[in-house]
């Protein structure tokens, strides 16, 4: 899905994606999600709305959760990018295990964005209360689970299993 290079003009970007150095010449208008999916084949990042509302494409750039559809790849030049394929640190593993244990996904399409959003929120000290977790997740649509299981999974990870 590469945009027309002549119309857009190309730029060189370098970044670390899931710990691997990446160096590519791409049209300047390529957004980060399209770059990861199209150029790097990292199709774990999903596009649900392409206008920043659904949260499915959320991924980590320098530790912050960002919308992959709203950020140009060139804006991530020099950054460390982590996609769902690279969530292998202890927190990422804990989240994955909790999602399985709590049945926090069904079709799986929104899940990568949920993981990235929670990873940032937990890193920033998300408190183990349901309302706080729901607020943290409120930028990500899930059409399958009704959210309760995702909230439970997050609470499992941050130690608030019994929170109401």
């Amino acid at each position, binding site marked *: *899905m*590469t*945009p*027309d290079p*002549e*119309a*857009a003009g190309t730029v060189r970007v370098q970044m670390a994606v899931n710990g691997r150095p990446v160096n590519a010449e791409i049209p300047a208008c390529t957004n980060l999600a399209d770059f990861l*999916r*199209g150029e790097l084949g*990292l*199709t*774990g*990042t*999903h*596009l*649900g*709305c392409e*206008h920043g*509302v*659904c949260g*499915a494409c959320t991924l980590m750039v320098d530790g912050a959760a960002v919308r992959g559809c709203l950020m140009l790849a060139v804006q991530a030049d020099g950054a460390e990018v982590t*996609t*769902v*394929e690279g*969530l292998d640190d202890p927190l990422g593993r804990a989240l*994955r295990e909790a*999602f*399985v*244990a709590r*049945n926090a*996904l*069904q*079709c*799986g*399409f*929104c*899940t*990568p964005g949920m*993981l990235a959003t929670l990873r940032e929120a937990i890193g920033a000290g998300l408190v183990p209360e*349901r*309302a706080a*977790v*729901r*607020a943290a*997740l*409120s*930028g*990500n*649509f*899930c*059409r*399958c*689970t*009704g*959210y*309760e*299981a*995702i*909230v439970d999974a997050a609470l499992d990870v941050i130690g608030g299993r019994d929170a*109401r």
Partner: protein
Amino acid sequence: MPKDHDGIGASTKRREDVRFLSGAGRYTDDINLRGQAYAYFLRSSVAHGNLTSIDTAEAEAMPGVVRIFTAKDFEGVGGLPCGWQVTDRFGQPMKEPGHPVLATGKVRHVGDPIAVVVAESLAEAKDAAEAIMVDIDELPAVIDMKAAVAGGAPLVHDDVENNLCYDWGFVEENREAVDAAIRGAHHVTTLELVNNRLVANPMEPRVAVGDYDRTTGEHTLYTTSQNPHVIRLLMGAFVLGIPEHKLRVVAPDVGGGFGTKIFHYAEEAFCTFAAKAVNRPVKWTCDRSEAFITDCHGRDHVTKIELALDAEGKFLALRTDTLANMGAYLSTFAPSVPTWLHGTLMAGNYTTPLVYVNVKAVFTNTVPVDAYRGAGRPEATFQLERVIDKAARELGIDPIELRRRNFIKPEQFPYQTPVAVVYDTGNYHATMDKLVEIADVAGFPARRAASEAKGKLRGLGIAHYIEACGIAPSQLVGQLGARAGLYESATVRVNATGSISVYTGSHSHGQGHETTFPQVVAEMLGIDATQVDIVHGDTSKIPMGMGTYGSRSIAVGGTAMVKATEKIIAKAKKIAAHLMEAAETDVELAGGQFSVKGTDKSIAWGDVCLAAYVPHNYPLESIEPGLEETAFYDPSNFTYPSGGYACEVEVDPDTGKVEILAFSAADDFGNVINPMIVSGQVHGGIAQGIGQALLEQAVYDENGQLLTGSYMDYAMPRADDVPMYAVDHSCVTPCTHNPLGVKGCGEAGAIGSPPAVVNAVVDALAARGVTHIDMPLTPARVWAAMNAAG
């Protein structure tokens, strides 16, 4: 040895999660074929008009353009077929106007495709589409259903008088008796209501990738579908004229469906057609704005319902009058939704002896409307459970008590309803009792008082639903107008060392079949579930199957798998009997071991499988080698899940904002294979039902522009909009006509919840004179209702 916790009834964790949690899922948009070109659809920006010219000359010269297609490229190609023909109350077939792949002569809704650019890149395709010159003589649009059928309205299809697709009556023979019963009744409760138009919005937008192999003449379509064989049949036989052995349809991981991915869409036919025409793969990926104006919408009924009761509150007769929106064209199963999936459920859980349902299906200049989670059954339940609540209030009878007085009693099953269907089992008193318990109905007055003390209005809403799932007995639906069989298939292939691949016609797009189906086979054979894998979604691999919708997977697809596994067991017992030199009738299978009754002789499952494929010591004179069986299962009846739902809300009297404080669901799904997955299905259904009740509505302006065409305008539930759910499925009356005793659970939540929510809000506002508010119950509507009534 088998692990007990892997079998039927275990909350086995989902095996599909591993790939979805590591980014290794393979959704259709993840598929990129060597040399693929990109399709971009130029769509009508007006709702209604005559297409006078399309000039592609300038666009064709644009960079990267491979080819531009218009309707003239599809002359001789069939239109998109409709899979269900409804007969009207006068015995005439419905009006069935054509649905071309690309708009021909006229455009009929915003989003109707006019031309398609296939180019080297999507950006180039979009640029070229902007250079296509289209002249449309705009016509007045017809949007409002009442106006559309009132006479003198503009015609969506020139040959469909009054935009009326059909005028359906059911049960037509009861019409006069129902009228008479209502005329003579002690009390009649009347309610006019809207079942709001919704957009299903699975998080994965639709995608189609067409491929063609010139050397074999074989077409392949990768598509976001709930039923690849249905697409192969409809597209191959009716649209493109491709024989099935030259057409493979693959629906890989699919990111949610909720009905809207059942249907055969123009983009699928286009990509398949174009791949051959341009001799390279052609890919189309829908963006969300495009999804809003091309995915079939759901619901959109306007109904007047009348319920006649005697002095004791017994239901005497029910009459409904409904306008159902079909949109601009008939989508695949659209005509069946407001008729056979709706009228047959109007008895609900009750003994109402006389029912008459009238439905007029209407063409408008809007996106086609078809099945969305529940499809017809939510519309039936909403009317019924709202009018019962209103009747209870009018008669001063507790709404739970009024329902109980009219419930079909447990000893009355099987129960012949006055609307054709026969309920096999159920115990509505039990689910209502369970609901009263888990929702703590007894504690409600105290909770209401506490809310009032802080200035909030509290309400409790009850609903009790029934649905017909396990779709469907083929001969019955054939008589009702279905142009498809609705059986399901499974092949169970036992490998030489005893592991098993099950090829199922059911399709999983979030339901967890890869986990639950092996649980069933493992239970039957007494082996570990990890020894069983599921293959689905590829017509080149699986037997012809009808896919997943209507909560049919476990009841129909699961039963096909059980039947195939029974054949496997029967054959394996013969082999085991030979190996153990015993009579076949003495051989038993338990815990993955065949044994001879009354002896200590036994042989392991794997050894019998090996003998089937290495038949050295084997009764070749009487049985074939190998261990692979296929079954097709056609159900003898629908299944009838039922349940009680309760919603408790607080309304802010200053703003009209509704907050859901508690939501409870007591469902009877028959036997449950995996309680964890069933709970997840109910949660998700309830969230969608709450979305319908409080947030969601597709809104068109009078010119046919969709005002809610993005996630900025169409409000779906977010994590902080929904409550915790108390769900229970311990009330079990097993289905009597399938071997697992299962009923299906996929749609229940979306069916039972909207009336529970609306009943709760009306309960909160009843003291202020509010008797009804149409969904969605936005703060503005609630505030207006409160203040208008007060």
